[in-house]
């Protein structure tokens, strides 16, 4: 009797456990399994296609080649760091030797000028995009607020914005380059010109979505909130600070997210063309290099570029989630 009872109990327990596991499996399959399947199918498709594409630099790289490149790119980075350290060590020994001989010897410390590895390029690219994007945001958000608040100013500037918005970064770049080299003349420039060129190009291209979205956010804000502000007789500055900016925060962030995506895309193109250090230059150099490994190295860079772009977007989304008061909007 007791045995049957306990056994039936245990069967119900196992039954619920199976159900739970099935449920877990179900959610896992949606969250994990399907993406994995998608990636696998893509990899198979890629491998199959790559075999059939012959280029002057050999076959198009397949996933295995590219994967190999990741480790060799990393290895190159490590090697380069070792070399740099060795260089500094030698330099220090040399300098201290000379100092020992002659205490008045003016110590010279030279920078190591080795090849930039992909990690260096990533860091450079991230710094460039951050500078360009932040500059754009500092200009675009206040401008968007002014446009949203003042209809006459909006009417005056809207045509200009609409015309500049669709301009490709590649069209801006020559102009920017010429202007920078004309205006920015200093014998020992603190900031490299090539950096400025690509940064300003990024700024010019990612200005517009932020301006437009911010101004739309301000214009479409609830008229009742404006009336509240009027009844309270909030001074203009306080009105902007307490009502206008918070009310348009969701739209401001939408614009910022769009802009950051554009900024990252533009940056790679600008770096390629401007020959300014960064991931774009890495791609260009590999292309010029034309070795049998070039294509797989470029493909590795493509994946890195995509992945960083994805991370930037996610990061922006998290920021938006954090700052947006409008939690009812589903952000994806």
């Amino acid at each position: 009797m007791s045995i049957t009872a306990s056994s039936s109990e245990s069967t119900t327990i196992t039954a619920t456990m199976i159900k739970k596991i099935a449920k877990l499996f179900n959610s896992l399959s949606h969250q994990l399994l399907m993406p994995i399947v998608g990636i696998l199918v893509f990899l198979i498709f890629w491998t199959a296609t790559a075999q059939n594409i012959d280029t002057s630099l050999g076959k198009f790289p397949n996933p295995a080649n590219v994967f190999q490149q990741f480790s060799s790119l990393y290895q190159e980075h490590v090697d380069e760091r070792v070399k740099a350290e060795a260089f500094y060590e030698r330099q220090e020994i040399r300098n201290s030797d000379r100092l020992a001989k002659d205490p008045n010897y003016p110590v010279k410390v030279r920078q190591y000028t080795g090849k930039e590895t992909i990690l260096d390029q990533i860091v450079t690219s991230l710094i460039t995009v951050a500078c360009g994007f932040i500059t754009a945001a500092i200009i675009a958000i206040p401008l968007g607020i002014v446009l949203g608040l003042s209809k006459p100013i909006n009417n005056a500037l809207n045509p200009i914005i609409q015309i500049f918005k669709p301009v490709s970064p590649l069209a801006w770049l020559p102009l920017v380059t010429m202007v920078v080299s004309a205006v920015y003349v200093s014998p020992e420039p603190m900031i490299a010109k090539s950096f400025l060129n690509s940064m300003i190009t990024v700024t010019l291209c990612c200005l517009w979505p932020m301006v437009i979205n911010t101004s739309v956010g301000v214009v479409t804000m609830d008229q009742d909130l404006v009336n509240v502000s009027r009844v309270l007789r909030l001074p203009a500055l306080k009105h902007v600070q307490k009502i206008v900016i918070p009310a348009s925060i969701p739209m401001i962030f939408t614009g910022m997210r769009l802009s950051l995506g554009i900024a990252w895309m533009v940056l790679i193109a600008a770096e390629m063309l401007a020959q300014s250090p960064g991931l774009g230059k890495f791609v260009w150099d590999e292309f010029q290099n034309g070795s049998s490994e070039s294509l797989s190295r470029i493909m590795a860079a493509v994946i890195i570029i995509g992945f960083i772009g994805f991370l930037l977007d996610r990061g922006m989304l998290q920021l938006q989630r954090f700052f947006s008061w409008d939690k009812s909007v589903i952000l994806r």
Partner: protein
Amino acid sequence: MSNIILDISKIDMQFPTPDGPFTALKDVSLKIEEGEFVSLIGHSGCGKSTVLNIVAGLYQATLGGVALEGKEVNEPGPERAVVFQNHSLLPWLTAYQNVELAVDQVFSHANGNYKSKEETKEWIEYNLKLVHMDHAMHKRPDEISGGMKQRVGIARALAMQPKVLLMDEPFGALDALTRAHMQDSLMEIQNELNNTVIMITHDVDEAVLLSDRIVMMTNGPAATIGEILDINLERPRERLALASDIEYNRLRSEVLRFLYEKQRKVDHITKEEKISTKTSASVDGKVENNEAA
């Protein structure tokens, strides 16, 4: 006519429209005494909100003007606080912060009524308590119900210590039960503070229950004040006791007669009116209920 606080004199209001100016109000005059509770009632679209917005200073009358304590008003200000129909709380601030924004603005050195930090806090909490919102002070608008939001809206307006409190269908968006609660709360507050109030309503019972005077407006365009009904029911008023009160029922049918006999909407339903049937349906629905009862 002892101490008139608000004097609305000969107001005309024209809105510019694509097909020429549209006269919404024509020759509206009304004097309101201090401490008086006045309801504005009339069919949808007749121009009640327009009157209120002119008093608030949000609109400028085409002709005529409004004087508060003898001084002409032509811009909005906290001494004519408004409770909007759809609460209009700032969604990113808590109930407390919403009231705080108003209090910080109204009480300052510049206005000569500066409140210290503790005094400010006390005053905000006092006003939230008045509307029974002290338990959810630190919740944001999206975390509280419609009725609660409206309570906070009222607290915000009261905290400005307005000379005239303006309310545009403050309970229009609430269900009947919540509305009854809110009316009781409002009577309780009125009992304590004795504010001067102008309230727009679609609800005949609400008007009779709360008001000292009911101002009935004719249909637009060129709407004006049709009749004014004095409500001399004793205070405090009790909704249940009044239900069987002869005087109360006489006043109620007086308002109903004005709305549905004298100012009956006879014109054909045009496109414009189809849009506004949603609000007018609540009046009609109300009537059916009353007649059934």
